[in-house]
């Protein structure tokens, strides 16, 4: 059954590809990208998922981890005005495939160096954020979750401005954006909970390109607000209900409940620096990022980094990467000493404030075997640390290393 489905989607993708060429007319261009992937891990104790996915992979092969299909249409009105929409089908916060509107903007070219986009744009928090779903444009099978799992926000409804200037061979780009992000968060506790959020966000990124080197520095802040984050609301509700029992310390407990929650909107900052190199046959990609709470919030501060190195041999590109994230505490939240009066609450709150950590080593190979098609095979060796890292539906015990094997066919048309 699964095999048939796989063959069918593969054929469908090829058919779409064969037809795409005829979809171009003068002003309208239709293009698309996708990945047909299959993955499995070596454990039935936990699931390995992309960030915000409601369903990951265990020891049975699944196509949901990496498979997606994006369709994009751009209409060019004249030499300075165009409109673009993109829809993306994939498994995200729902266990089945769903389709989201990922881009929908009108772009105005102010001059040769400056353009403004208004509408829905992807949030360029990290170096590959805005093309992380385009398998063909990436060397690795998927963005390292240690890094890209730090931010759940994918796009904003608002505007961005791009300024590009060349100083001789040095190419400089600045992108600034502001808007409001709305979406869903998947929380893998209590059997899996989906919460809706709203987050006004703004940020800026500077990119410098010199020959084969690209360096990027970015900072963004988002004010995350969610009222239906069930497990968190239960905890803060319990703390508030218990507060009167703590007599004079009651205000401290109410403050703690306010501090932990995201009902009022909590500001979180992301700062990252990234470097890519594609020189001769050597391909490097590395990034370091910090997530910092700017308001008191239950979300712990984290540091993350990864480095990928590859060597191109003709059409084949083998690569290796190491990724790592760890918590640097929750200095934003002050847990009152009086909470020790309720050992259960105390332990729950302190447990919540601890960040997970995880390391991964991965090896893979990309093979550009045909026009607009790339085949990838990747093996991840995940070493979950505190709270079993980024794995989902984990047991309460510490898991050992998990191996994830995946193969995928990336295409663009």
């Amino acid at each position, binding site marked *: 059954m699964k095999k048939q489905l796989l063959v069918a989607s593969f054929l469908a993708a090829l058919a779409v590809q064969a037809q795409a060429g005829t979809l171009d007319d003068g002003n309208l261009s239709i293009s698309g990208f996708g990945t047909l992937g299959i993955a499995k891990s070596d454990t039935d104790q936990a699931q390995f998922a992309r960030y915000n996915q409601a369903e990951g992979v265990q020891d049975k092969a699944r196509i949901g981890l990496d498979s997606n299909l994006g369709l994009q249409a751009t209409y*060019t009105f004249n030499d300075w005005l165009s409109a673009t929409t993109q829809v993306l089908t994939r498994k995200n916060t729902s266990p089945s495939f769903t389709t989201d509107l990922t881009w929908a*903007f009108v772009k105005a070219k102010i001059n040769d160096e400056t353009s403004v*986009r208004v509408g829905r*744009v992807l949030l360029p928090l990290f170096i590959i954020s805005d093309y992380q779903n385009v398998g063909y444009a990436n060397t690795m099978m998927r963005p390292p979750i240690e890094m890209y799992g730090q931010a759940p926000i994918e796009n904003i409804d608002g505007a961005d401005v791009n300024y*590009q200037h060349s100083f001789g061979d040095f*190419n400089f780009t600045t992108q600034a954006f502001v808007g409001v992000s709305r979406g869903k968060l998947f929380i893998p506790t209590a059997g899996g909970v989906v919460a809706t959020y709203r987050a006004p966000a703004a940020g800026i990124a500077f990119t410098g390109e010199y020959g084969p080197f690209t360096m990027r520095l970015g900072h963004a802040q988002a004010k995350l607000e969610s009222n239906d984050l069930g497990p968190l609301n239960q905890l803060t509700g319990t703390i508030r209900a218990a507060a009167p029992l703590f007599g004079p310390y009651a205000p401290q407990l109410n403050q703690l409940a306010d501090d932990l929650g995201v009902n009022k909107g909590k500001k979180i900052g992301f700062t990252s620096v990234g470097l890519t190199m594609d020189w001769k046959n050597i391909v490097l990609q590395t990034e370091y990022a910090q997530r910092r709470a700017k308001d008191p919030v239950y979300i712990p501060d984290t540091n993350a980094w990864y480095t990928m190195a590859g060597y191109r041999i003709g*059409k084949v590109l083998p690569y290796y990467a190491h990724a790592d994230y760890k918590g640097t505490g929750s200095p934003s939240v002050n847990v009152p000493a009086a909470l020790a009066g309720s050992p259960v609450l105390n332990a729950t709150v302190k447990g919540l404030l601890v960040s997970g950590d995880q390391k991964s080593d991965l090896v893979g190979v990309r093979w550009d075997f045909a026009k607009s098609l790339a085949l990838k095979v990747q093996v991840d060796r995940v070493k979950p640390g505190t709270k079993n890292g980024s794995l989902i539906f984990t047991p309460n015990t510490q898991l050992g290393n998990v191996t994830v094997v995946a193969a995928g066919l990336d295409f663009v048309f």
Partner: protein
Amino acid sequence: MKKLMISLALATLAAAALPASAETVVIVNKANPATRMFSEQAAQFFLGKSNMFTPVDQPESSPIRAEFYHKVADKDPAQVKAIWSKLVFTGKATPPKEFANSAEVKKAVAADPKAIGYIDKSAVDDTVKVILTLP
């Protein structure tokens, strides 16, 4: 036998020194004030790093296209495709328009003051201006 080996080696050397394909030249509109360009600069337009000129491309599977990107940017067609995938699917740029052959590219460049293209040297005439000859 030895003679055969030597002549084979010489033939290989000769083939390497004198490639079968003709020279490729980068052309712009006659109204374009530029008079010459380095291959690194030309690559910027064809890899979407600069919007100053509008690149005009040869057909995707044509030998002249593979050779052009190899010479100006040391990239094979798949690498160029991956670079454009990034730009296209992040809504930053649209890939260069493709034309059927050198004559069509020349026509497109002659018609657009901002266009930049590359064609076989033998196709050059006075409707366009050559700003770079690729070795």
